[in-house]
């Protein structure tokens, strides 16, 4: 048989697969509707930006110092301040989660402030049941306090200024919008869903119905069969990806500072790997229910939790950190965030793409091996 015959067979398979995709509403649902819904949720629903931190404030004295501090808190755009006459009054609110912290200026504040031997304390109580928010309460109050000190310094030549003045700079995301890194990261999850879950479900159905065996009885060769399955789902995934990038850039106004083509290249490497994982799962399970479970457990959940997309990998326990090295999504998330926010950082993007491709090749070999065996 000539190469020409092979090409013709692959083409026929691809056309068949395309018709199957178009005719089946569930693949349209997974590849177009689900990405848009997820992108919507990650763009609007999931946000780490605490713009209106609700705080309680107790002034136990009404001196000039206490009032000026209270004003600088109330005027800060980061807080929504609720005044209470004593701590107990606000305790119910913090219990109910209506406020995230209480700032207390004690009755001896200005008296201590005037004396040389005592330091005037301001107490910041945060609701530790939400640890991340609590850390932000402490940080933001620290920031507001620093601003107040500076203001004081200008107003009245205050003794003992902070000796070290710190100038923080946040590169690549100056306004600190969490959407700017959550939306690019979520593309990795969406690609995993399409590449792995969709491919696994569809091919598993083919095994369940027995049409796979019918295909194997035809003169089609094993690698032609693999290519014929890979290409349509790969193209579908790239279509989804392009759609999602458009939504990210034009609707969520996430900056795309790197090259669009480099992004396309990295995405195709990842999609290739994700699709192969889907093929492998379906070949091994041959059952839709198991295929769905397996692709959620090996594809979706690791992409969500272990990729560093929201949760910092370096904070995980060591054994789990080792596991993240074999999760292709980890490398993809890092590439996505870099390409969107930083630009073409070649060393990082190239080395991560190499990792992704390596996983892809390993999966290709395993899949080809397993499919060959089934033919016997």
């Amino acid at each position, binding site marked *: 048989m000539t190469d020409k015959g092979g090409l013709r067979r692959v083409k026929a398979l691809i056309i068949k697969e395309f018709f199957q995709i178009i005719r089946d509403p569930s693949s349209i649902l997974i590849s177009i509707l689900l990405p848009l*819904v997820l992108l919507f*949720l990650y763009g*609007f*629903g*999931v946000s*780490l*930006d*605490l713009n209106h931190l609700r705080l309680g404030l107790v002034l136990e004295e009404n001196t000039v110092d206490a009032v000026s501090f209270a004003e600088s808190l109330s005027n800060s755009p980061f807080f929504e301040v609720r005044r209470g006459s004593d701590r107990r009054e606000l305790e119910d609110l913090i*219990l*109910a*989660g209506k406020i995230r912290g209480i700032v207390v200026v004690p009755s001896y*504040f200005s008296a*201590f*402030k005037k004396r*040389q031997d005592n*330091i*005037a*304390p*301001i107490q*910041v109580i945060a*609701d*530790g*049941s*939400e*640890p*991340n928010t609590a*850390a*932000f309460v*402490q940080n933001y109050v*620290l920031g507001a306090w*620093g601003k107040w000190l500076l203001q004081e310094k200008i107003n009245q030549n*205050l*003794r*003992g200024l*902070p*000796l*070290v*003045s*710190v*100038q*923080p700079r946040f*590169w690549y*995301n*100056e306004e*600190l*919008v*969490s959407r700017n*890194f959550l939306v690019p990261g979520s593309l990795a999850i969406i690609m995993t869903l399409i590449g792995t879950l969709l491919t696994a479900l569809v091919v598993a159905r083919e095994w369940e119905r027995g049409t796979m065996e019918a295909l194997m009885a035809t003169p089609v060769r094993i690698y032609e069969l693999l290519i014929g399955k890979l290409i349509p789902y790969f193209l579908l995934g790239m279509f989804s990806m392009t759609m999602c990038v458009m939504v990210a850039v034009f609707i969520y106004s996430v900056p795309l500072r790197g090259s669009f083509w480099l992004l396309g290249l990295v995405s195709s490497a990842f999609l290739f790997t994700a699709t192969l994982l889907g093929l492998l799962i379906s070949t091994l399970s041959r059952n*839709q*229910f*198991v295929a*769905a479970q397996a692709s959620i457990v090996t594809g979706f*959940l690791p992409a969500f*939790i272990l990729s560093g997309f929201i*949760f*910092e990998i*370096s904070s995980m326990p060591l054994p*789990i950190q080792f596991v993240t090295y074999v999760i292709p999504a980890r490398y993809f998330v890092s590439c996505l965030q870099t390409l969107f926010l*930083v630009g073409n*950082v070649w060393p990082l993007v190239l080395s991560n793409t190499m990792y992704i491709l390596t996983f892809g090749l390993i999966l290709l070999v395993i899949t080809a091996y397993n499919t060959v065996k089934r033919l016997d």
Partner: protein
Amino acid sequence: MFSRVYAIIIKEILAIWRDKKSRAVLIIPPLIQLFVFAFAATLDVKNVSIAILNRDMGKASFELIQRFKGAPTFNHVRYLEGVNEIAPTIDQQQAVMVIHIDEQFSRNLYAGKEATLQLILDGRKSNSAQIVQGYALTLIDQFSRDFAHEQGFPVQPTMLIGRNWYNPNLLYYWFNVPNLCGVLTMLVCLIVTALSVARERELGTFDQLLVSPVQPFEILLGKTIPAIIISLIEGTIIIVAAIFFFQIPFTGSLLLLYLSLFVFICSIVGVGLFLSALCKTQQQAILGSFVFMSPAILLSGYATPIENMPPWLQTVDLINPLRYFLVIVKGIFLKDMPAHLVFANTWPMALIAAFTLTGANWFFRRKLE
């Protein structure tokens, strides 16, 4: 009527328990998720890599660097040689923060003048970068105070004292595990109910139920009660693990927790039966549960706080039962939440349960008749 419902309940439980696959789905994945999520899904900031560019030759900067090296949060410290190394270090994610100390640092400090220090942070990870910045600011403030004290300079007259109630060390898994109690119970409850009718339809046994003398309402009851029992057991397993394995402090009332758990489960069973009535095959039921579960979890306050969402989405989120239960479960575990606050979060779930259960009942009748 009672004996008929009882018979269906026994049949349902046996059907789930006898099938090896569904038994495994109920026990193993939730437990694995509990353990992996509890430790991996963390917004904690630990083991941070930082880099320092020190262009100062004095003693003060050396002391400051020692403090950074000694801090438990920062465990990899790299030293940079020049300003041109800053950009590649951040770009290639070799450090989250670069501390840039200029030539004048020690000289200014010893002269009692203000010394400047630049922190460059990776905005790609704005959440951890801000927390790292907070650690750095606290450390530098402490250094500056100690330095002034040593040198006999006037010390800054005010000070912030931070305290964290309910979780003094801000351990993230104290937040995670009680939340997972809600999330995983919902997951199991939804799968059990959504698949139960769909599977019977696929196998054709649903028609057999229809020709038996049971009423549609009794079928519904027979599907609801086992799901509630199984979910309560699942919830109990997680609560026991939380208290005895994870050693999360349990400060509130167990009775109140179970009461609200029961109402919560009822509302989810309603959703599951609703899906069940809509879906013809198991695959549709799986996809349907996924479509319900993703927004329910992402918008529950577990992933990120609800108050960060745009106001209109917060309004939409009022129909999400999970958000109420997460407030209760965290409150009862960590805050010793009083009864009136528990009820304030329970009645919306009861309302949702009443709505979804009657809705499911209506759908069922329509499908059957």
